[in-house]
């Protein structure tokens, strides 16, 4: 269990993290989302005592990080896959890390096998691709078999197979009862990977809830209906207070999007008017849509419109 309470971090006058509080529950993958510059990485560094906090506290199972004896065995970390010495081999990178927390060499070989790097473990890290470094970073995070795993952008640089592998790995880790906190910009991947979300903007908490709840709260769902008798269905739906939007020319289109009523109501209405249905689908927006809607006013860096 990770408990973040009132975390505040300032860089001069700039408040990078502002009174941030959230929890990460064991047995679940929690996604950590926020626009660029929202303070995600700073928060993660503050959590493990790399950056000094101005206020607030973070505990792991009730203990502050710096008081944990041999912390690798409690909290597995991947903050940045490029935090390696390029002249050192992957195996030696893990060996010094293992030695720093009294972990034996046997465990190094185990995690190398787990992430599929045994064959390249002797190579110097300057020859590793970003994807290989991500795998090595995950191996380092798992070195101490920790109860808590914190990963910053673990899918960066991974190929599709690697992305699926890391998704399955994180779910597996959570299924073993570990608390998994993962930050990522790949929202489609996050929607598949995470069960809970912590969303921040400009260093402040915007929302903490399940992915499903977050999408439900922050998007509108529509019902797509296609029928030769679409006009009759829509007339009935309007009477129920629905909003109608034709797909294509309303004079000839047999397809429409209905908002404001549930798919069940549209189905029952169709049956009541004796309409033949060729399609009845609930169209829900994605996590990306929900995220963009929620963080629209929280973007630190905004791109210009395409011209």
């Amino acid at each position, binding site marked *: 269990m990770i408990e973040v309470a009132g975390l505040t971090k300032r860089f001069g006058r700039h408040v990078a993290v502002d009174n941030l509080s959230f929890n990460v529950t064991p047995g679940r993958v929690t996604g950590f989302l926020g626009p660029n510059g929202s303070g995600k990485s700073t928060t993660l*560094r503050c959590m*493990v005592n790399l950056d000094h906090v101005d206020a607030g506290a973070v505990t792991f199972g009730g203990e502050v990080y710096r008081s944990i004896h041999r912390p690798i065995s409690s909290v597995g970390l991947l903050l940045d896959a*490029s*935090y390696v*010495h*390029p*002249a050192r081999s992957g195996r030696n990178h893990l060996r010094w890390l293992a030695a*720093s927390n009294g972990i034996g060499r046997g465990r190094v070989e185990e995690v190398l096998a787990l992430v599929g790097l045994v064959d390249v473990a002797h190579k110097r890290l300057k020859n590793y691709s970003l994807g290989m470094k991500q795998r090595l970073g995950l191996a380092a995070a798992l070195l101490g078999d920790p109860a808590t795993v914190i990963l910053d952008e673990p899918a960066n640089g991974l190929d599709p197979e690697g992305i699926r592998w890391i998704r399955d790995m994180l779910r597996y880790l959570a299924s073993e009862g570990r608390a998994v906190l993962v930050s990522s910009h790949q929202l489609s991947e996050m929607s598949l990977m995470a069960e809970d979300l912590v969303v921040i903007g400009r260093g402040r908490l915007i929302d903490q809830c399940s992915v499903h709840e977050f999408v439900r709260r922050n998007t509108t769902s529509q019902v797509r209906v296609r029928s030769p008798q679409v006009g009759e269905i829509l007339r009935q739906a309007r009477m129920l207070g629905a909003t109608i939007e034709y797909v294509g020319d309303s004079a000839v289109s047999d397809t429409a999007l209905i908002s404001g009523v549930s798919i069940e109501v549209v189905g029952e209405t169709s049956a009541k008017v004796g309409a033949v249905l060729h399609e009845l689908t609930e169209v829900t927006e994605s996590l990306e849509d929900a995220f963009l809607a929620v963080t629209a006013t929280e973007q630190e860096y905004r791109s210009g419109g395409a011209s």
Partner: protein
Amino acid sequence: MIDAIRAEWIKVRTVRVHWILVLIAIAFPVVVAALVGVFNPDPQFIFAKDVIDLVSGVSVVSILLLASLWVINLTSEFSHGTIRVTYAAIPARWKVLMAKAAIGTVVTAVVLTVTFWLAWFVGSTILSARGATTMSLSDVPDVAGMFWSLIALAVIVSWFALGLGTIIRNSPASVVVVLLWPLLIENLVALALNLAGVDSANKWMPYQAAIQAVGDLDGYSDVLGRPAAQLYFGAVALGLLVIGVGLDRRRDA
């Protein structure tokens, strides 16, 4: 602390440039001693004390190379970001820096011991073969004092380098400062003090005083004594290290 020392020992052993610096540090005095032995036109006028003076003088270059090693070993952690992995693994940062200092102390002492005696052996053997007078250490007054003060100088310089590296954090800047401190910075400070009317300012330049204290002090009245010079420089180096540890504790990693 033992875990930190084990981790730092693996770090030192597993980067090729560290080995290259150690090999150069050993090879330089040995090669110089060999060249002097081979090319000196009058080997019969070379005595054991001359060889020891040569070796101890040239070994200062080895000391600077080893100091560069310890600076690079630390500051490359900041440039590559591995210091964050290190401090996350060992949250008590002072343990990491003390482990580096401990490794630096032992490795520096061992490497310089090997260097000193290997260079002496090579130089004296070649000169003996070329007709020099019998090369015996018993003919060299205070050879043990010179040797141990050289080792002390090397160890203190390793702390000095680590302290500067911890404060500066940047590899090129730290190496430049470590190398220029005895060669330029202290000379400039002494010159400025002399111009300001301070007598014998050189005597109080800690790095230079410790270097001078390695050699034969007979006949020199304007230098600190050997123990005083080493204690003085040792205190300065430890002071830098303490400042570095204090700053490092307060800074973000």
